[in-house]
């Protein structure tokens, strides 16, 4: 039996097009890094500029155990 956990995923601005249908209940392997997550979603790494895990800034190397809320922003600079 698979040991999968799930996260809630929110991709902002231009990253919206990479949002999976199951974003509210996205299945991951516990211990997956954010880097692996975005690679799996086919998001170019340089576009994942700002990563939030449960409302706190995270990094590409941050690991996910399931249950987290993930928000990812590309660079946004318009005024």
């Amino acid at each position, binding site marked *: 039996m698979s040991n999968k956990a799930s996260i809630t995923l*929110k991709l*902002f*601005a*231009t990253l*919206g097009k990479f949002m999976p249908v199951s974003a509210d209940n996205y299945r991951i392997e516990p211990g997956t890094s954010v880097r692996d997550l975005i690679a799996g979603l086919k998001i170019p790494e340089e576009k994942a*500029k*700002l990563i*939030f895990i449960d*409302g*706190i*800034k995270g990094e590409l190397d941050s690991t996910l155990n399931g249950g987290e809320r993930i*928000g990812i*922003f*590309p*660079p*946004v*600079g*318009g*005024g």
Partner: protein
Amino acid sequence: MKPGVDIKIRIRELSNRKKLPDKTPYTGISVNNIIDISRDSGISCREIEIASLEEDIIPERYIRNMKSFSATDQATLLKSMITIVGLGGLGGVVTEILARTGIGILNLVDGDVFEESNLNRQFLCTENLISTPKAEAAEKRIKEINSSVMVRKYAEYLNEENAAGIIGGSDAVIDCLDSLTGRFVLERASKKSGRRLVSAAVAGSCGHITTIFPEDPGLKLVYGDPENAPNKGAETSLGALSYCVSLVASLEASEAIKIILKNGSLLRNKLLVIDLADNSFETMQLS
């Protein structure tokens, strides 16, 4: 020249006892009386309004502020200086709000002129102002709204050379720029001259805003190292929607006013992120 005793007597003579809609009594003075006293005395409307507030006589133009601000707060705002860098979508709305709120001195910085693609979201841009310098339009708009506001207009782009001179002395600086490179130039100058900076950016229906004091890590937490940051972001493909721009601009004005009045809580080391597509508003911890 500062208003003397005779000016204060004149202010009192021209004031009226009135009541707020909730029946709270107050003493007010009309815009036209302020302008008349200024014309007769040669003292600026701004100084007359400050003197009036010090006598607890409220200029009618600010009366709807007065359940949120004290007379002292309003006078503090009139004595304050804010620099608005970028007079496009964010900057146009920020300018409008700060002029109406009664910030005494506004430094306006933008070397650009209006073009047709600005009409969807830039409140200062009208059909007859295409090709007009944005700084010129902003100054004209402020004078129409509030003749007490002193304007210092810089129809030039902010750069490493002119930044310190423009923002020096500002009680708050507001980043309304449209490039990441420009934002880092402004942040460096703000930190160097000890200014408090409010910075926001938008793309499509998304936006974010943060407040940066000189000792805070600041924009590198949002965009990464300046050396590796692109000049433009998602707005290049998404553009920007008027209702998102004006919302985020309102938040910038609110932060700047709280900085000056030293009240409320600020978005220091925090990023308020917004997406109007699904009504998400969340304050994230940056450090």
